[in-house]
């Protein structure tokens, strides 16, 4: 039951809706209209990103996936473990050498240096490192029983993003965009923003479309300057010059189309140039956080040096989903390893660097979406590729832990103020209501109105899914 790309036709109404959408800079369109070049044939052009209907009534319309790359420590952030205080410095019985990534990792418990306090009506305990996120406790649905299958960054990243440990499969963002299209044709349907220090291991393989069409791959958005690479011509090309080029291009292409009537691909390509031209206006407008009030900017922590970058990205994400972008992924941490959440050496300096960077921006994002009535239809996902060991590596660090970790969801039809599942008393392994990555994926798709068993693409002799052959929807976290 895969979705047929050819079914996506542009009706005249749809086209005019999109095209007449009120952006000031529809110069190309005007230009073409002036010259009588708006051929009727184009209106039947196929567009892989046109909106498609969900399998059933969705709760969420769009996703903001905040990826804390490197593996944030669940026992210091979302999953309090008093037992670690008791066992501090002593070997814990559940430790297995083969679970750890590094040979220097010890079997002795290391207590969290941070206090957990209960928040909101739900009394959800959250670490003192996340004061603003804690302020949204009643909107958070913390899953404490995640587990994955690799203790190595690259396979674990691919697993979280694509459902497979090997690279080359379509990412969740690609699957969702493939399933639902996008509601704004002047912007990419799937946008990725990465940390100013660099991207995650594996780079674009984390937001690839794999073997499904390239139309669904994530488009990187920069957080400063022009959002999309190649959005505008090089400086030496003047606007008037570009318009003249486009005018001749349109004329020659229309003539070619007239000689090849009924060739939808040609019409689609002409149309893609119109969209591109519109994107030149729409993309910078969409990410212009300067249009927001000072109060809004402060909500996201943009006025504070520590959180200004991530705050901008979160605010950009809100503006993008508001404009109909389907899937936004933001990476926190990147570049060199010690600049990610990968706290092998010094847990405290790592967390005290990263947490204040993202805490207020995420808290602000949740609040802002809520006050705009957008939280219900926007699914926020926060988490990394695995968790960290409750034991110590060296004197002050924690190693990778694939056997138990936490993530949180907010909005998008999830049940706020919930802690779902549990790890053992040390936070070492998920033991209660265990959630696999396919389970998480199946649940996210479900919230978007997609049946993870029906969202397939025929590849290598099979109808391949994001969730491969597993995936159980976690009903208990759905509102």
């Amino acid at each position, binding site marked *: 039951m895969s979705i047929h790309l050819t079914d996506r036709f542009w009706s005249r109404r749809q086209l005019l809706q999109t095209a007449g959408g009120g952006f000031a800079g529809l110069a190309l369109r005007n230009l073409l209209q002036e010259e009588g070049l708006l051929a009727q044939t184009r209106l039947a052009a196929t567009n892989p990103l046109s909106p498609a209907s969900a399998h059933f009534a969705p709760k969420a319309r769009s996703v903001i996936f905040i990826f804390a790359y490197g593996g944030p420590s669940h026992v210091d952030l979302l999953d309090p473990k008093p037992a670690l205080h008791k066992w501090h410095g002593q070997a814990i019985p559940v430790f297995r050498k083969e679970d750890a990534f590094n040979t220097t990792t010890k079997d002795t418990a290391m207590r969290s240096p941070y206090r957990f306090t209960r928040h909101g009506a739900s009394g959800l305990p959250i670490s003192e490192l996340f004061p603003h996120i804690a302020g949204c406790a009643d909107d958070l649905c913390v899953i404490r029983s995640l587990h994955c299958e690799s203790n190595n960054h690259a396979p674990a990243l691919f697993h979280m993003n694509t459902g497979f440990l090997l*690279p080359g499969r379509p990412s969740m963002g690609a699957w969702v965009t493939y399933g639902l299209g996008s509601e704004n044709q002047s912007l990419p349907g799937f946008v990725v923003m990465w940390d100013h220090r660099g991207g995650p291991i594996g780079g674009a393989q984390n937001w690839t479309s794999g073997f499904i069409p390239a139309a669904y791959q994530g488009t990187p958005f920069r957080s400063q300057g022009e959002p999309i690479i190649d959005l505008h011509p090089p400086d030496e090309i003047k606007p008037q010059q570009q318009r003249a080029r486009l005018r001749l291009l349109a004329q020659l292409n229309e003539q070619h189309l007239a000689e090849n009537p009924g060739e939808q691909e040609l019409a689609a390509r002409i149309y893609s140039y119109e969209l591109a031209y519109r*994107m030149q206006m729409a993309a910078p407008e969409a990410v212009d956080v300067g249009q927001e009030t000072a109060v809004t900017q402060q909500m996201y922590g943009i006025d504070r040096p520590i959180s200004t970058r991530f705050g901008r990205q979160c605010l950009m994400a809100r503006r993008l989903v508001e404009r109909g972008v389907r899937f936004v992924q933001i990476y926190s941490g990147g570049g060199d390893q010690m600049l990610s959440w990968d706290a092998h050496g010094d847990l405290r300096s790592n967390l005290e660097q990263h947490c204040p960077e993202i805490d207020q921006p995420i808290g602000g994002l949740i609040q802002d979406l809520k006050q705009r009535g957008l939280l219900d239809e926007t699914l926020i996902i926060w988490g990394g590729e695995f968790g960290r060991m409750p034991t110590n590596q060296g004197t002050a660090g924690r190693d990778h832990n694939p056997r138990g970790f936490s993530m949180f969801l907010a909005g998008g039809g999830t049940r706020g103020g919930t802690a779902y599942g549990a790890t053992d008393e040390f936070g070492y392994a998920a033991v209660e209501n265990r959630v696999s990555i396919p389970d998480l994926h199946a649940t996210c798709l479900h919230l978007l109105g997609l049946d993870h068993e029906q969202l397939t693409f025929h590849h290598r002799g099979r109808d391949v899914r994001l969730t491969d052959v597993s995936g159980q929807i976690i009903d208990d976290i759905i509102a």
Partner: protein
Amino acid sequence: MSILTLRCCWILWLLAVVAGVPRAAAADPEHWAFRAPARPPVPHVAQTDWVRTPVDAFILAKLETNGVTPAAPAPAGKWLRRAAFDLLGLPPTLVDVELFQRECLVDDGRARARWIDRLLASPHYGERWGRHWLDLARYADSNGFEFDFERPHAWHYRDWVIDSLNADKPYDQFMMEQIAGDEITPGNFQALVATGFCRNGPTVGNQSLEKHRWDELDDVISTTAEVFLGLTLGCARCHDHKYDPVSQRDYYAMLAIFNSSGRRETLIGTPQQRQRRSQLEKQIREVRAQISKLQNHPSAGDWQIRGRELVQQRLAADIRLLVGNPAWTDYTVDVEVLKTAGTEKAFNYEAGVSLMFRATEINRFYWLRLGISDNREHSLAIDDRGGRAPITRTIPGRIEPNRWYRIRIRVQGESLQAWLDDRLLFQVKDRRLQHGRIGFGNWLSTTRWRNLRVRDARGSLLLDGFPNLAQTSSPKFTAGQETVDDLNEQIRKLKAEIEKLPIAMAIGDDSRQPRETRLFERGDHRRPGGTVAPGVPAVLTATPLSFPNPPEHATTTGRRHHLAKWLASPRNPLTARVMVNRIWQYHFGRGLVETTSNFGLNGSPPSHPRLLDWLAVEFIESGWSIKHIHRLIMCSSVYGQTSSPGHATTADGRAPNKQTDSTRDPANRLLWKFPKRRLEAELIRDQILAASGSLNTTMHGPGVRPRIHPDVIATSTTRKWPTVIRERSEHWRRSIYVFARRSVLMPMLESFDAPTTTQSCDRRLTTTVPTQALQLLNDVFTNQRAADMAQELLATVGTSAAEQIHTIYGRCLSRPPTSKELIRCLAFLDQQREFHSKTANRSTTAQARALTDLCHVMFNLNEFIYVD
């Protein structure tokens, strides 16, 4: 999971019943593709004059049965452009087209045959068809995964593919060498290189787990079965195949064939070459040792005292100078610094200016690091013998060049404070270092320092001004020391030397003794079951294939060789069919069997089963000649049809009315016209290079790395691609030679649907999205190629606008402009020249810019990237 799997099967069964597929078929060994092909008779057709090769008879018979008339022949020019892109991936020149048109007037059949031969003889043929094969072979120049280590010898395989195809190496041999080249002709370099086919899959480079080995072997046998047999064997790793009569045991029998093989990096060359390799490797080890020494002894720089200033002018990584007394404990440092130069090279976290304090050793200190992270941050950090970590979070900030900044550091017990221009930047507590001297650091920056004063806790001066450098006891001050950067550059050069040696990225067996292979329950290696003997899928052989014990003197198990021989046997029902079908797909955009890597029950049935079998038998009997199949296909009338029948006129002047055909067979499955196709990603780039006159036709060798926007390089963890400011001829090779780095694919290729290189890709998808348009419109590449093309036209064609337009059309579209187009383009050039003359100071500049505009438009035309 088991319940779900069962549920899937149940649903599939239900669907099969509902769809009216007899359930027994799901295990039917009589499936057409599992029986060896026999040559069917060439069918009789009514319109015999349409039949140029037997291929036509099969196609036409079906068209006639369905009452569909084939389209008129394509005009000669369009035919040649189509043929040239099909075989070479490059456009024909206008001169070629005109010559061909003249020859066609005499005898178009002979003219086509002659030109097909001419194209097949071009070395570009191997580059074009090699690309198809590399898609299938999931070729890449790096491992994927963390670090994405490079594969410095992978390119030999790419060149082997190109050369084999150019030589029309018989396909059976071509195939056999890729599976068992080491066993077939031991000691032969090219045959070893061929086994790179089994090495191309992604591999985890930073962790060695048993699971990875099974995953890698899975990649090898799945790819082998898909590519050569059109069988999705990988589905049977965990359970019996859901659609095909392939059991889990069949999968492990195939695994038993490859299980004894491992990776080899084999140098086969002259004794001198072998000696050279050890020499180079020794040199690399030496340089590496120097580097590790240097990392404990960072660069010296060229510190000098000029007047009252301390000056450092060398632009290198990690330059340090320590002064003062190691016994100092609590003190306040005041100093001013001016950055004279610094790299703002994107994505350099380290580059910046720093002041060290409490330096107990040359590699153990606190440091205030200013303007790091691409001059966007300040940080207070500790370096403990190479272990670097910020003590507190970094804060945003820049260091502008040529401006004096005041720095103050105060250390008192465990309290550390740092000011910049009287602004308190950092205030933290840390007790790791208790005493030590101070130091100055440059990392890819040059500086001037002045007004140094160090006072102790009571305010007494410890240092006033800079000490005499000759007398400094600073351990790293040994002028002329080479920097790590220089040494890394040396290593790069040495490695490049090794790359040139004939080293094969190959596979080999450990001995003649095979490893034991067990069936893994649910594909989980932690749950081994019974042992499995080597074998091929039972459904494909009447009697099980035997794998006799290798002779006593053998050094390998010989199992892959047996598999290869079986694959290449004329009795193998799949091998020839699968390959001729691939050739068909690459000519027509779609195979006779649409699922080219899946000939199983779940694959699509052939549109022309008899033609497929006829071609398969013909292929085998021609001695597995791929070029022979090209000729049969390309000389045909079906290949020669127009792609736009609505506008063609037939030879006898009949009014063409394709309305009925497009209604009867809108998907063109019967091939009543030639399908128009978008060029693949690589060909779009290659054609821009060719049209602009920039194409560097050098063949072979290590991959090249053209310009990628720095922000794209930054989306991965570490720099995996060099920063190219301006491309040169060395970058303008055909795209097949672009280094295939799994974590940084070239955006232009990626967005036009180039494969991800992680799995075999049997068919390119074609999608059209605005970001592609943005790339072709705005990227430096297209704009720069257009500008260079304009310059070249001015130099070679002269100043006649009509001549220029004529040449541009010839180069970009392989045809002259129509008069309407000529008028339009002339007007455009006039208008643009007029526009540019307002800003250009010379008329030739305005003219060049106007021409640039026109060339740029051509690169974006639909006609430019769609082939008729």
